[in-house]
């Protein structure tokens, strides 16, 4: 950034760096941490990647922001952005599925609950996917399954690793059995990826439940969770109703899963980028490329939609 010397002079609260991070910040200067109720200055919180500076509570963040803070800012290409859900069953409960979709699309500006971007992580080529929990609870239907499948295919065609951030209530009921089939679809794709010797890093964030947990989220070569994320197959309420007892404190949280051997590690959001870089570089036996000098970096990269493949060669290993 050419005016970076100028930024350094400014007091922290007027700094304008990381403008791309502002996208998902709602109105209002102040906000309250949902865990410790500390009143926080929103700009500080954003700079801290939405981790409460007081209690380290990891506040839920959307898919775009997730990928934005994970990937290098330059050279990004979105995969499967054109895919849109269809209400093939004409499903209607208290509301029509079509209306729910329209509402979710309006609220999130996403077409469905998964965003996939091919880009770089500390200069290592990767494909990264992230669930948008605000889109119908991050539920997995046909579009989510197909995008994930395409993400795996891009990885296999170009010999690059896959990273997925999950945040989902499970399969999307409005697509009925078709959504159940997305579990076997994504798992079959991951088996292919694995046979090709490419790493898959699964990062489980709050919450990852049901059909997503019981397919792509638990199948990482390395399973990583953010602190205190709710992760499990059956929801705690369903379990409570079944076993008729109150569940112990911390049940189905990341720490519980680590203790029971379901995940490899718990990583703070602020360290995920470097941790995953290190793991991928070791699993693929590649040294981490020299960081690109900040002067050369365009800090507000456009997210290029797939179809525009002018940058393809830069991704090849």
């Amino acid at each position, binding site marked *: 950034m050419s005016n970076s010397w100028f930024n350094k002079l400014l007091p922290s609260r007027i700094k304008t760096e990381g403008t791309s991070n502002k996208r998902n910040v709602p109105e209002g200067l102040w906000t309250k941490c949902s865990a410790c109720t500390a009143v926080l200055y929103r700009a500080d919180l954003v700079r801290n990647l939405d981790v409460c500076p007081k209690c380290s509570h990891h506040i839920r963040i959307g898919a775009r922001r997730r990928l934005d803070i994970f990937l290098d800012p330059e050279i990004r290409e979105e995969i499967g952005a*054109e*895919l*849109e*859900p*269809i209400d*093939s*069953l004409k*499903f*209607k*409960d*208290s509301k029509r599925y079509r209306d729910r979709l329209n509402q979710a699309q309006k609220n999130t500006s996403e077409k469905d609950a998964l965003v996939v971007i091919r880009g770089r992580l500390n200069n290592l080529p990767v494909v990264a996917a992230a669930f948008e929990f605000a889109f119908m609870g991050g539920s997995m239907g*046909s*579009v989510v*399954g*197909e995008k994930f*499948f395409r993400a795996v295919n891009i990885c296999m065609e170009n010999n690059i690793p896959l990273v997925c951030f999950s945040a989902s209530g499970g*399969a999307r*009921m*409005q*697509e*009925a*059995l*078709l*959504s*159940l*089939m*997305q*579990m*076997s*679809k994504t*798992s*079959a*794709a*991951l*088996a*292919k990826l694995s046979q090709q010797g490419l790493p898959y890093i699964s990062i489980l964030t709050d919450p990852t439940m*049901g*059909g997503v*947990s*019981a*397919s*792509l*989220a*638990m*199948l990482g070569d390395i399973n990583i969770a953010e602190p205190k994320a709710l*992760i*499990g*197959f*059956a*929801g705690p309420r*369903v*379990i409570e109703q*079944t*076993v008729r007892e109150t569940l112990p404190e911390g*049940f*189905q949280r990341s720490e*519980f899963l680590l203790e*029971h*051997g*379901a995940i490899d590690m718990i990583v703070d959001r602020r360290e995920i980028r470097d941790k995953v870089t290190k793991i991928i570089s070791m699993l693929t036996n590649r040294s981490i490329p020299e960081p690109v000098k900040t002067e050369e970096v365009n800090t507000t990269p456009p997210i290029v939609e797939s179809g525009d493949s002018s940058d393809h060669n830069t991704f090849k290993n």
Partner: protein
Amino acid sequence: MNLNFLDFEQPIAELQAKIEELRLVGSDNEINISEEIEKLEVKSKALTASIFSSLTPWQISQLARHPQRPYTLDYIQNIFTDFEELHGDRTYGDDKAIVGGIAKLDNTPVMIIGHQKGRDTNEKVRRNFGMSRPEGYRKALRLMKMAERFRMPVLTFIDTPGAYPGVGAEERGQSEAIARNLFELSYLRSPIICLVIGEGGSGGALAIGVGDRVLMLEYSTYSVISPEGCASILWKSPDKASDAAEAMGITSSRLIELELIDQVIKEPLGGAHRDISFTSSEIKNALIENLDTLKYIEIDNLLKLRYERLTQYGVFKA
């Protein structure tokens, strides 16, 4: 009310009761009332046919859970010979909600795996109502890998309300156990035929439901969540289960229309439990027919076809 009949079958139950009564009278007296009984039986059959010609999805899901519906072990006994049950996941325990073992189908050795429900209260509890814990899915996977090693086809019988939602199940990795099966079955080097015989409940069903052919008995169901579960989440009222059953399209006739399954096996009039030997022979024929097709497909080609099949599921606008 006759408990062997579902509520929508009560008119049939009443007619049957009348027939039984007449039979008793007939054996007491010397009067020949066989003609009358015959008439009533024809009527009963016609009534059954008429009721069963227009079942709602909710009625079908009650039939799929009928207390007298044949379970996996019933079919094993009726269809196969030389069954040897194999136990345990070699890690934690033996989940009795899933049974498995080797047997012969018309002299061909096969690996059978299926959910198992219990008939009486004790058995129901022992089988955990057909709801498996991780060790059940891991036992299934162990047996399927064994089938791969010995070049045996795998046949699965699906009949579960879903994977068990319990504390221990979560502790031992319910999600991972299901996910691992989906992953491994996608390239298991043996032909796999899956048959839904009762309830195909969600991930718990799919964990032994990934294969080269998916068949359903006429009055079985297959869905992402139970109608009650769906109703209580989306309608906020479990009473709306019949609406949910309708909306989700969980019946064999709907699912074959949607091309999500390959074949529907006819059941006798009134459902599988009315004539187990007929149902068994229909199943046996279907299994043999499908295996005959699959066994001539070279294994690498079969895996390619399976992968294409698994990854083409989905309806979306591109």
